[in-house]
């Protein structure tokens, strides 16, 4: 029933940042944490 609530396909879920499609989010966060990736959202 709840699935019918979604009126259109999500544009946002599971969309990686451009250029990082080859990484998992966990890998991305680990690399950002050690400074291998500059991500302003991760401090």
């Amino acid at each position, binding site marked *: 029933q709840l*699935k019918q*609530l979604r*009126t259109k396909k999500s544009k946002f*879920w*599971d969309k990686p*940042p451009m250029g990082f499609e080859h990484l998992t989010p966990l890998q991305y*966060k680990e690399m950002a944490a050690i400074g291998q990736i500059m*991500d302003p959202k991760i401090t």
Partner: protein
Amino acid sequence: CSRLHNKPTFSQTIMIPNLYHNPANAPSLPDGRPGCTMTEQELEQDYDDFYEDIFVEMVDKYGIVEEMNVCDNLGEHLIGNVYIKFSNEDSADKAVAELNNRWFNGMAIKAELSPVTDFREAHCR
């Protein structure tokens, strides 16, 4: 706020920081024009779409959602935070574990358990 937030080991509620980027808060352009030109109606639609997107995904993947709130405070540690209270702790645990390895809008999600159980009583000390 001391920013020394209590992080519980079990909870029905999860928190995803800075998930909603309200277009109304876009910074002004260098020439002084406002960063957001959306109408009030468009802003409301943007928020409604976001809320539906998150809510439906939570119910679909992780469990029954009792309540969900998006923080509109402008404080850096609060802005755009999404709080989701599930009907049980197992759903919250599963959500945190899986969301921490998912993307949303080009962002690697950081999810954690939150001590908030009553949103009407919640406030930063």
